[in-house]
């Protein structure tokens, strides 16, 4: 059993990493590899759940999630109908019979309860329906095209925020009260307070236009242009395009994580077992990395649940500024367009993400601190 678990864990780690590498080098990722990765990952999770004795908990959670999703779907359906203005209102008004033709096409001429019944039974059969705005496009297709993009953007931003946030917080806590601490926290505060709609243009002007080199060192700036070393200002075609949006999206969570890590490390560092460890004569490094860090990750994880769901389903502002074909844009524009089925589907997608992320975080609690009882 242990061997199998270890094998699966290493497999999913290895496959995950190789997928990232092949994505960043714009190589073609074979479908088989992707499928194998997901099988390994799910296998690891299943065995993990089983061995931690969480099967019942897991089943219960899935059950309650389905009820939650049903309530969310119903509430969204009703709230959408309460919004003033319909999907087919436009500057050019429609003759009444043309409007009726369109409503018939989408079943909107039926009484509300029948529309509700049709929609829900469609959802149960796995039909998300057709978009009203993007004529003839199935919503499942839209999600299939746009979600992976947002997922990728969010995934890299998430990795970035942990890579920056945790060490920064740890550093600040270890040097508590010194100039390093203040500097790190200053950085974090600025990261939290800089909104992405401001952050993005600043990054673009520096890394994509070479500002202020174009004013102070025009010849060097020209060199930069000739070498094609400046980053693209928008779009999402190659890894070079990923850098600025990932940075923009990752800054705020990394600052948040840094602050959380710091305060939580400071809490733990004063507890008895740390004093004991130090009294035993362990080196400061061992104390910090092996005893303190692991125990201070719990608050960070609590924050990570909703963060993962939010960041993986995209950030509207970042997607709009960098013209990234992600899902968050559809979400916001769906509301503006009153594209009912699209909003319904995306609300459900976001809810599923949130539920899943919280579930995984709950399980990770147990992994990090086996004393925790979750039920």
């Amino acid at each position, binding site marked *: 059993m242990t061997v199998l678990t270890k094998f699966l864990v290493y497999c999913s780690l290895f496959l995950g990493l190789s997928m990232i590498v092949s994505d960043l080098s714009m190589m073609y990722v074979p479908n088989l590899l992707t499928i194998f990765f997901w099988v390994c990952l799910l296998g690891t999770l299943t065995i993990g759940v089983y061995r931690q004795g969480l099967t019942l908990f897991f089943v219960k959670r899935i059950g309650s999630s389905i009820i939650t999703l049903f309530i969310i779907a119903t509430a969204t359906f009703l709230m959408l109908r309460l919004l003033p203005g319909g999907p087919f209102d436009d500057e050019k*008004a429609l003759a009444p019979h043309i409007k009726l033709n369109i409503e018939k096409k989408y079943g909107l001429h039926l009484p509300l309860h029948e529309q509700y019944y049709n929609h829900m039974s469609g959802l149960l059969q796995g039909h998300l329906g057709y978009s009203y705005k993007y004529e003839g496009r199935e919503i499942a297709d839209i999600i299939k095209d*746009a979600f992976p993009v947002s997922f990728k953007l969010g995934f890299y931003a998430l990795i970035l925020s942990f890579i920056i946030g945790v060490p920064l917080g740890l550093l600040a806590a270890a040097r508590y009260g010194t100039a390093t601490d203040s500097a790190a926290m200053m950085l974090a505060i600025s990261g939290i307070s800089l909104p992405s709609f401001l952050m993005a243009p600043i990054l673009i002007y520096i890394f994509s236009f070479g500002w202020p080199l174009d004013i102070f060192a025009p010849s060097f700036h020209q060199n930069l242009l000739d070498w094609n070393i400046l980053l693209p200002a928008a779009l999402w075609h190659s890894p070079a395009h990923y850098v600025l949006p990932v940075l923009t999206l990752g800054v705020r969570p990394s600052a948040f994580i840094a602050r959380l890590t710091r305060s939580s490390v400071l809490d733990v560092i004063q507890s008895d077992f740390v004093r004991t460890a130090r009294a035993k004569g362990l080196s400061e490094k061992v104390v910090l990395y092996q005893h303190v860090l692991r125990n201070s990750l719990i608050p960070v994880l609590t924050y990570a649940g909703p963060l993962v769901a939010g960041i993986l389903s995209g950030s509207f502002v970042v997607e709009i500024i960098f013209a990234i074909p992600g899902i968050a844009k559809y979400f916001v524009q769906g509301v503006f367009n009153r594209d009912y089925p699209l909003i319904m589907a995306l609300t459900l997608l976001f809810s599923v993400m949130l539920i899943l992320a919280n579930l995984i975080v709950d399980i990770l609690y147990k992994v990090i601190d086996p004393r925790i009882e979750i039920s």
Partner: protein
Amino acid sequence: MRTLILPALFLFASCQSHLDSWVRLPDGTRLHLPHDQTLATVVNSEPPTLDWLTSSDTTSSWIEEHLMDGLVAFDLSSGELDPKPALAQRWKRSEDGLVWTFYLREDVVWSDGVHFSSQHVFDAFHRILKPETAAVAVDNLFVIQNAFEFNNGEIQDFKNVGVKKLGDYQIQFRLKAPVAFFPLIMAHHTTFPVRLDIIKKHGDRWIEPENIVTLGPYRLVYWHHDSRLVLKRNQTYWGEKPQISHLIFYIVDRSSTQLRMFERGKIDFIKDLPSSEIARLSKKPEYNRSTALRLYYYAFKVNKKPFGNVKLRRALAHAIDREEIVKVLGSGQKALYSWIPHGLPGHSDTIGPKFDVKKAQKILKSSGYEFHKNPIQITLGFNSDEKHKRVAENVQAQLKRNLGLNIELLSEEWKTFLSGLRGASAYSIFRLGWVADYPDPHTFMAIMKGHAPNNRTGWQNPNYDKLVDLGMSETNIKKRIRIYNQAQKILLNEEVPVLPLFTEINQVLVSQRVQGFHPNRLDLYHFHLMELRK
């Protein structure tokens, strides 16, 4: 070692920025997009569809016009936008003006090799008018006999509609009433021929690059939804083959992002410029500006207090200085007092109430309203937008200054605003605009007819309706202008349900390497008529 990873990644990433000079086509092959033969431009949303019969937005139609041709085309090189032969070599109008016969070219081939014939034109009209198609932009076609009745389900048999095939290369239209500008309607994308067999075979996905069949100067070869479309020169095109071999339409929502891409040399052509940058951009050699066939106006809800009173409406019309509004906007719009905008027959600076504060005050006094004693709330509604806000604030200030009126501004989200136009709304004055489908004054005059869906004022006048119908049928341009002058007098000087404010402008940035660009009033830019400098 670890510290090297991030910089290495950055370097690695930046070396790849040239990689988007090719795309992978649906069949797995790579299509290279050589810079010197590829023109890149940008649209500000994913085209809702590329089905030219059901689309009703400018993004879709811009791309469709590169993929398809109509029976007639606008002559974009002349300023007048006259109709010129396209799929139809010539056309004939009957004596009474009711029957139009179009003689089609016989050398046109669809991109799958099938020969084009009158059947495809007939199919297009059948399909767009069928109620089940639920096409939005059909109202221009209701001039055809029984087209309206077929579209609303009154008539089931398409044989009764005035569209008739005469052999393989002739098609005939019978109209309800004579229409002087009928060929102009035949240049619109809702009349382009269509292949029913392709639609039947692929269903809703017939517009995807692997399925779509077209006959225009370019073919759709790549469509990454919400990211970009790539068009390639059609080697079997019946007309003169375009010089530019590939077109890329990037999909970028924000005009400031578009501008950044233009300034980085990534794209060659932008239609939508951020208003805050106009002052800077207008000094550049790439900047082009032309008057648009687009009207910006305010309208009154005449059934709502206090604007049932015609004198009050007239007073307001005299109290607003359009020149001042245009100055506030500062990007070249033209102050407008007549209903027909600049650049169309029937436009005249002498029609419509002129700005005259004294007259306005006098009329207001005679209207019987005493606002100081008995204030009535007047609310001006518009949809949330920087430009609309600036116009509204200026009008608010002018009315305060010139008439002592206090009006409130109400800015609403687009769909909320539109639903307010239909039903009960808080505002009694509102903003709207109108874009011409074809370069003829009728498109503007018709929207104010009594039962026209776009007349949202609640106002109607049978004399006005009669004059507009008369103008539609009149072929003598001088007589037509006289009729429209009369109608505009009713609309603007006597009854005043609307206040035209200004004619909009089209602004584009065109890279210096593009040649043969002609600014035009319809905002139609066809890249097959342009060239790239080597």
